[in-house]
């Protein structure tokens, strides 16, 4: 009897744990997803909406100049191969990270630009988070503004996206929290004075008021990791790219907003 009751209790416990896992593992239904833009204050929205007031546009402007600047031992500009970015780069940011066959793994937009610089221009690649790389990335990504995020239907990406998903749900750091616990389970609630967003990377590189500058998605991811008291992955680390891949898939269909403004 005693043993049976114990088994029963154990079974119930397992069931509850499974239910809890199911609940907390619930992803946001497609119909309920929204960009962080929706929760911005009126003034911050206005800052993003007006290209003559959006400080992220300063970086876009610099990127436009760099696009036309000849560089490297090949003395080539991006424009020499890709022409008018308005046409050639439209929609590109909406489908990155993308699979790079020569590397056998996905690369994000910054890495793609860097690969181009190193291989096509024979130039020194730009450092992660450098003004130049952010500017070129912002300029390229802005050409997709308004386009729905459309991760490529490429089976080679699947294991990497799954790895990113695992990271999103993995409890990390001294606070022992998974990304999902804030951004899937508690979005729209508050953490101190700020609203918890769904964390869709719709507008990167973003101009963040806290940073007082433009910054990449990986900077933001590292920022979150520090918040969890976890050791952030290095800029460009495969884990960060896998996470980007998962986040873009999670945000599929939402329009690109680059350069977005966030608090």
């Amino acid at each position, binding site marked *: 009897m005693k043993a049976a009751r114990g088994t029963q209790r154990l079974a119930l416990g397992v069931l509850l744990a499974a239910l809890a896992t199911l609940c907390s593992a619930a992803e946001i239904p497609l119909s309920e997803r929204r960009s962080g833009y929706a929760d911005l204050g009126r003034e911050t929205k206005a800052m993003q909406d007006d290209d*003559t007031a959006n400080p992220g546009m300063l970086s876009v402007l610099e990127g436009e100049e760099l696009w036309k600047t000849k560089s490297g031992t090949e003395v080539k500009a991006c424009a020499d191969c890709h022409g008018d970015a308005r046409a050639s780069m439209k929609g590109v940011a909406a489908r990155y990270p993308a699979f790079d066959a020569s590397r056998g793994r996905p690369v994000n937009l910054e890495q793609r630009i860097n690969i181009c610089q190193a291989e096509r221009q024979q130039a020194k690649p730009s450092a992660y988070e450098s003004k130049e790389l952010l500017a070129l990335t912002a300029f390229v990504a802005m050409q997709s503004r308004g386009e729905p995020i459309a991760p490529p239907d490429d089976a080679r990406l699947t294991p990497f996206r799954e790895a990113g998903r695992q990271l999103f749900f993995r409890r990390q750091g001294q606070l022992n929290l998974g990304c999902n616990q804030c951004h899937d389970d508690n979005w729209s609630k508050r953490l101190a004075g700020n609203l918890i967003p769904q964390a869709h990377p719709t507008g990167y590189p973003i101009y963040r008021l806290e940073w007082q500058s433009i910054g990449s998605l990986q900077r933001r991811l590292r920022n979150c990791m520090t918040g969890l008291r976890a050791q952030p992955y290095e800029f460009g680390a495969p884990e960060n790219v896998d996470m980007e891949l998962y986040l873009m898939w999670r945000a599929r269909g939402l329009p690109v907003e680059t350069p977005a403004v966030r608090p």
Partner: protein
Amino acid sequence: MARALINVPAKAKRGEVITIKTLISHVMETGFRHTTMGVRIPRDIIDTFVCTYNGEEIFRATLHSAIAANPFITFHTVATESGTLTFTWSGDSQFSQTETANIVVE
């Protein structure tokens, strides 16, 4: 070289009040912050902004550390004649940048 974004209407009617928006890339380091080692980061701000319209000063602002990074300033002027608006930002560490915009007044 810092970058600037200036928005002036290309055309205006004589006597019309036009809106001028300016945005310039600058850190606006306050002078009140310290490094993690406790060393004070020296102030590095734009402290003066001047706009002239065909050579005549129409707007001037003194900025302090409380102006947000990448200063954004919007003001107005009456479109009097066709010509050039000149914008000059200057400040710490010999910072100085000048940009111009043309306007046609009909």
